[in-house]
């Protein structure tokens, strides 16, 4: 960019511009990161030598991966567990998506002119979002017992957290023109939302819903680890008996399903946005 310039007079050399000094923020952040990293590494007992040594030890799980039992993918029990996982993902996502639209509208300025309810809703959503999916599943297993219902409820809350956050962020970048037009034409609040807000966010919203389906499908594989139904129950079963070859058969099959769903979903999402 800065090409060499021949000075007009030979005696007067051009000086390079001063380099900007690193800001106090950058220095502080750098120091903070180094200190934090050292603290964390000591806390978890991290050591590179131990890492390499441990990785060289014989590993039954890895042996199982190399001798995967492919037959496990198609046994009747695994198949029904798969269908259950798929059903949980579809139902949980649908319920979460339907409920998330009004909640997202109520948690933004355009849909809810009152500050206090808006703030309350946002903080509730922050709490929902900070609870991991497996913890939701554990809670519902305790409350409602082992089975599909607990997984379904866990996925519902998990979807709610993701969808409300993404949709609310989209709503923040809304084009206010149509809203003003609707208000100027005397539309009541719901009509304004229906005609000026929802059509604007619908493509993005549909895309988020598909993304959420992908997330839920992936999450529903592990929900069974705490007893919330689906393929995870089988994974837990094989893990407890140390049958890693069968476990890997299941996991690989699951990835194939996730890949196919993601492939289709990404195609559709590209069309939407």
């Amino acid at each position, binding site marked *: *960019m*800065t*090409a060499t*310039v021949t000075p007009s007079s030979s005696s007067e050399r*051009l*000086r390079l*511009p001063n*380099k*900007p000094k690193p*800001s106090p*923020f950058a220095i502080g*952040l750098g120091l903070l990161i180094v200190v934090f*990293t050292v*603290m*964390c590494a000591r*806390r*978890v007992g*991290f050591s590179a030598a*131990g*890492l390499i040594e*441990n*990785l060289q030890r014989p*590993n*039954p*799980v890895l042996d199982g991966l190399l001798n995967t039992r492919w037959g496990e993918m198609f046994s009747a029990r695994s198949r029904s567990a798969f269908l*259950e996982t*798929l*059903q*949980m993902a*579809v*139902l949980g996502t*649908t319920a979460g998506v339907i409920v998330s639209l009004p909640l997202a509208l109520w948690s933004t300025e355009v849909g809810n002119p009152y500050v206090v309810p808006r703030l309350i809703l946002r903080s509730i959503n922050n*709490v929902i979002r*900070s*609870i*991991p999916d*497996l*913890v939701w599943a*554990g*809670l519902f*297993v*305790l*409350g*409602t017992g082992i*089975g*599909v*219902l607990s997984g*379904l*409820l866990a996925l519902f809350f998990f979807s709610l957290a993701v969808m409300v956050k993404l949709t609310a962020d989209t709503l923040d970048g809304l084009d206010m023109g149509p809203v003003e037009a609707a208000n100027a034409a005397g539309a009541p609040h719901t009509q304004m939302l229906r005609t000026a807000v929802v059509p604007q966010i619908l493509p993005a919203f549909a895309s988020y819903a598909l993304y959420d389906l992908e997330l839920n499908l*992936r999450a529903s*594989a*592990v929900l069974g*680890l*705490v007893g919330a139904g689906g393929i995870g129950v089988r*994974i837990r079963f094989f893990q407890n008996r140390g049958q890693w070859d069968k476990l890997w058969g299941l*996991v690989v099959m699951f*990835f194939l399903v996730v*890949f196919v769903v993601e492939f289709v979903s990404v195609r*559709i999402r590209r*069309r939407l946005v």
Partner: protein
Amino acid sequence: MSAVPGNRLELPSKGRDTARIALTTVFVVLFGWSAMSVELKWARLWTAPADMYRLFKVMFGDLPWDELGKMTGLMWDSIAMAWVGTLMAAVVAVPLAFLAAENLVGRPIAWVTRQVFNVLRAVPEVILALLFIPVFGLTPMAGVLAIGVGSIGSLGKLFYEIIENIKPGPIEATDAVGASAIQRLRWGVLPQVAPELTSFLLYRFEINIRASSVLGIVGAGGIGGTLADSFSFKAYGSAGLALIVVIVGTIAVDTISGAIRRRIVSGRSVDIGDSAKYAVDTGGMS
């Protein structure tokens, strides 16, 4: 609105999107099939709120505050696991991301690297933890590796998308002065992508906190183990306290990390001395 009386304006006909109708049909059928055939007594859905209310009453009714110190320590374990894992992932993901950016390497190499990212991205951390536990035992290191390997895919994907969006100008400039491949990365690419890379790293850290606080459920260290134990021994009070610690810890880290991210991306105004004078001198040349 209506222009000429007697001559009514017709609304334009609505477009018909066949693909949209087909998609909607597919989803409705899928939903219907799921709802009908899932092994679930739907009546139980109505008793669920009462069940959950009873659970919350025993969980938060009598909190064992004397366990707070232990819980905070375990949450701190989870946070440390997430951070070390995220850093480990970044160390692997950054060089790989350069190999996945089509504007830096050829298409075939980029394609292969991206498939690696895709496979890694598909594996849930908990499954990875199952893989590492027999190697490292029931220690935080198993969790660190699970998070580290699990984040390579998504970090790499975000990173190469950032790298592909850089401006070609600085790269051309480094090429024009005869920079080597490494120098080109150091001066042409890295300064452009560094702020966004850092920001995504922190964002991933926030996500990984959620992952690492549940890894303990399968035995990989952190607060998840206590949570799972108190669930299975029906120690509801401890479970409630652990849950509160997880929520408060996660929100606290989110808030701090979010503030740093905003500051990094918005940047600051830089005072570069009296360079404006020289900009005039070189202006005619560039």
